[in-house]
C-alpha cells in the first residue's frame, strides 16, 4: 500500500519527496528467486509424492529402534511398579516431571509461530508454521507420557478426568495438578484442530495431484471436499484468525499452569511469582531451539533455501536471542529476589543451586541458556547454518537442565536436613527419556512422508505475485527509477 502513496500526494509534497529522495528500502524477500505458484506447489508436493528416499528408511529404522526404548521402559514400569524409577523421598518428582516440562515447552514455539506471529502479521511464519505445529503436537504426545505413567497405576489415569466412576468421587479442582490436566489436554486438542484446519487447502492440492486411488481417497477424505471457493476462504480466514486469537492466550496459559504446579507449592525455589512469565519465555526459547534443530537439516535435504531463506533463519535466531535474554534476566532476578526477600530458606535454595551438589547442572544450564543465545547478536553467526544448528542443540540441552535444576535441586534440599538426598536417574528412566526422542522422530518422519511439510496456500498468498495490485505497483516503481 505504501508504494501507492507518492502518486496520491499533493504536488508540493511530491516535489519535497523528489528533493529529499528517500532511500528505497525494499522489504526482505520471503521467497527466493521470485518463485511462482506452480513451483511452490511442485516443491512442497514432491516431498510427499516422490519415491521414499533411502535416507528416510534408514532414519526411520533407527528412530524406531530408539522409540522402542520408551516402549520397553514403560512396559517394564507397568509390570514391575513405579519404583523402577529411582524416585525416593524427598525427590518424588524428578526426571519424569523434568521431561514432561521439557517436551511441553518445546511445543510452545509451534503455537507461537502459528498463532502469535499470525496476529502480528509476520509473513515469514508461513514457511515454517506447518512443521512447527507438527512439532508441537508430537512434543505434547511425548510430554503426556511422563505424568501419565508417573501416576503409578496407569490404568486408573482416567480418574484425572471428571468422569463418573465406581467410587462416586470427583477430581479435586483446587489442585494445580488437575488444572494442568485440563491445560495440557486442551492444548493438545486445540493445536491439533489448528494444524488440521490449516492443512485442509493443502490436502486438497495433494488430492487434486494424486495419481493412486488410495491417495485420492485419503487426501480427498481429509480435504473435506475443499474447492478453494472464495465464499469458503472468507469463513476459513476468519476461523483461522479466531483460532490464532484463541491459541495465543492458550499457549500462554498452558505454561503458566505448568509453572503453577511448582509456584503454588511451598517449596523454596518453587514458590515464586516470577514463574509464569519465566516459564513461558523459557518454553518459547526451547521451542525455537527445536524448530531450528529440525528445520535446518530439512532445508538442506530438500533444498528448501528459496522457501526458508536466510531471512527466516535470522528471524528465528533473533527470537531465540530475545527469549534467551528474558530467561537469563529471570535467572538473575530470581537470585536478587532470593536475597532481597530475606527468606533464609529461599536464599539457601539459590546458593545451593549454584554451589551445592547439583552445581554442575546449574552451570551447564547457565552456559547453554545465557551465553549461547547471545552469539545470535552477530550476523556472521546467524549466517553460518552449521553453527546455528549446533547452538540450537545447546539451547535444547540447556533448557532440559533448567527444568532439572528447578525441580531436583529444590526437592533434594528440602526444609528438613534429615531427609536431604541426592537423586540420580535409574537406567529405566534414562532409557525411557532417550526413547521419547525416537517417538518424536517417528511421528515427525511419518508427517514428512505423508503430509504437506509447508503451508503451500499460505506461502502463495504472501508471495509478491499474489497481490492483485502487483502490476500496478510495478508501474509505479518503474516510473520512479
Amino acid at each position, binding site marked *: 500500500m505504501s508504494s501507492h502513496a507518492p502518486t496520491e500526494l499533493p504536488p508540493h509534497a511530491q516535489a519535497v519527496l523528489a528533493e529529499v529522495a528517500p532511500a528505497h528500502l525494499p522489504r526482505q524477500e520471503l521467497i527466493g528467486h521470485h518463485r*511462482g*505458484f*506452480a513451483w511452490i*506447489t511442485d516443491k512442497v508436493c514432491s516431498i510427499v509424492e516422490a519415491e521414499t528416499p533411502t535416507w528416510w528408511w534408514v532414519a526411520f529404522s533407527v528412530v524406531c529402534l530408539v522409540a522402542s526404548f520408551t516402549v520397553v521402559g514403560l512396559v517394564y514400569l507397568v509390570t514391575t511398579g513405579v519404583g523402577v524409577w529411582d524416585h525416593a523421598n524427598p525427590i518424588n518428582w524428578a526426571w519424569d516431571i523434568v521431561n514432561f516440562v521439557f517436551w511441553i515447552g518445546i511445543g510452545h514455539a509451534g503455537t507461537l509461530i502459528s498463532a502469535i506471529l499470525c496476529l502480528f502479521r509476520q509473513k515469514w511464519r508461513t514457511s515454517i508454521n506447518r512443521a512447527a505445529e507438527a512439532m508441537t503436537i508430537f512434543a505434547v504426545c511425548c510430554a503426556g507420557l511422563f505424568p501419565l505413567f508417573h501416576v503409578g497405576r496407569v490404568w486408573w489415569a482416567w480418574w484425572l478426568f471428571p468422569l463418573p466412576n465406581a467410587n*462416586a*468421587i*470427583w*477430581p*479435586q*479442582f*483446587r489442585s494445580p495438578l488437575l*488444572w494442568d490436566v*485440563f*491445560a495440557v489436554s*486442551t492444548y493438545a486438542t486445540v493445536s491439533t*484442530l*489448528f494444524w488440521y*484446519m490449516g492443512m485442509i*487447502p493443502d490436502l*486438497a*492440492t495433494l*488430492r*487434486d*495431484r494424486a495419481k493412486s486411488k488410495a491417495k485420492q481417497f485419503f487426501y*480427498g*477424505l481429509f480435504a*473435506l*471436499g*475443499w*474447492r*478453494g*471457493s*472464495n*465464499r*469458503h*476462504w*472468507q*469463513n*476459513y*480466514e*476468519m*476461523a483461522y484468525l*479466531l483460532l490464532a486469537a*484463541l*491459541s495465543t492466550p*492458550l499457549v500462554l*496459559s498452558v505454561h503458566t*499452569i505448568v509453572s*503453577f504446579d511448582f509456584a503454588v507449592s511451598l517449596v523454596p525455589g518453587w514458590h515464586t511469582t516470577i514463574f509464569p512469565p519465566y516459564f513461558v519465555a523459557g518454553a518459547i526459547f526451547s521451542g525455537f531451539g527445536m524448530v531450528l534443530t529440525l528445520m535446518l537439516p530439512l532445508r538442506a535435504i530438500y533444498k528448501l533455501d528459496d522457501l526458508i531463506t536466510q531471512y527466516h533463519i535470522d528471524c528465528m535466531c533473533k527470537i531465540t536471542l530475545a527469549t534467551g535474554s528474558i530467561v537469563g534476566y529471570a535467572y538473575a532476578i530470581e537470585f536478587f529476589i532470593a536475597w532481597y526477600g530475606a527468606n533464609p530458606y529461599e536464599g539457601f535454595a539459590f546458593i545451593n543451586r549454584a554451589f551445592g551438589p547439583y552445581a554442575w547442572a546449574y552451570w551447564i544450564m547457565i552456559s547453554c541458556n545465557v551465553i549461547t543465545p547471545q552469539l545470535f547478536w552477530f550476523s556472521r553467526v546467524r549466517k553460518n547454518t552449521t553453527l546455528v544448528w549446533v547452538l540450537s542443540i545447546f539451547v535444547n540441552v540447556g533448557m532440559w537442565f533448567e527444568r532439572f535444576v528447578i525441580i531436583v535441586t529444590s526437592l533434594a534440599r528440602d526444609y528438613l536436613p534429615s531427609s536431604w538426598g541426592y537423586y540420580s536417574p535409574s537406567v529405566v528412566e534414562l532409557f525411557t527419556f532417550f526413547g521419547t526422542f525416537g517417538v518424536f522422530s517417528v511421528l515427525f518422519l511419518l508427517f514428512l512422508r505423508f503430509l504437506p511439510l509447508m503451508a*503451500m*496456500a*499460505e506461502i*502463495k*498468498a504472501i508471495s509478491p*505475485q*499474489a*497481490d*492483485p*495490485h*502487483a502490476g500496478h505497483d510495478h508501474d509505479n516503481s518503474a516510473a520512479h527509477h
Partner: protein
Amino acid sequence: MSEHIHGYLAAFDSPADIMHAAERVRDAGFQRWDVHTPFPVHGMDSAMGLRRSRVQRFTLLGGITGFTTGMLMIWFMNGIDYPLMVGGKPMFSPMFAFPVSYELTILFSAFGTLGGMALLNCLPMHYHPVMKAVHWPRATDDRFFVAIDADDPQFDLIRTRAFLREIGGKDIAALET
C-alpha cells in the same frame, strides 16, 4: 435449457485478472456464482460483494458454553456432590475454578470455530460439479476460476458464455451436473 448443465467455469491466469473478473460478474448482477482460487486473494471479498463472515458467532457461543460448563461442573462436583475439605479452602470459589473454566472456554470456542466454519461452508462436501472440469486440478495449484451456476436467474447458455469470454475468461467449460 439450463437444466442439463450445472454452470460454466472460466479460467484466469493471475490474481489481478480474477479480481477484475469478479468485479465484472458482481456488477452484472449475478447471484449464484463463485470464485475458486488456490489461496485467499486479498480484497476478493469486496470484489465479490460478500458480507462479513459470521464464524465468530459460533466462537462466542462455544466460549460461553465452555466457561459455563467449567464453572457449573466444578461447583457441582466439588461443592455439592462430593464436598471434600482440603486445607481449609472453600468448597467452591470461582477463583480456583477459573483456570479449568478458562481452558474449557478456549476448548469449546475452538470447536465452535472449526464447526462453524464447516457449517457455514457446508463442508464436508466430497463431491461438487466444479471438480469434474478438465482444468480443475490447477484450481488448487496456480490457476483462478470463476464459476457461474445455471440456476442463477440471469443465467443464459449463450449470453453467459459470451460474457465470461468478454471479461477475459479462458478455457470456458460447461459443468456437468
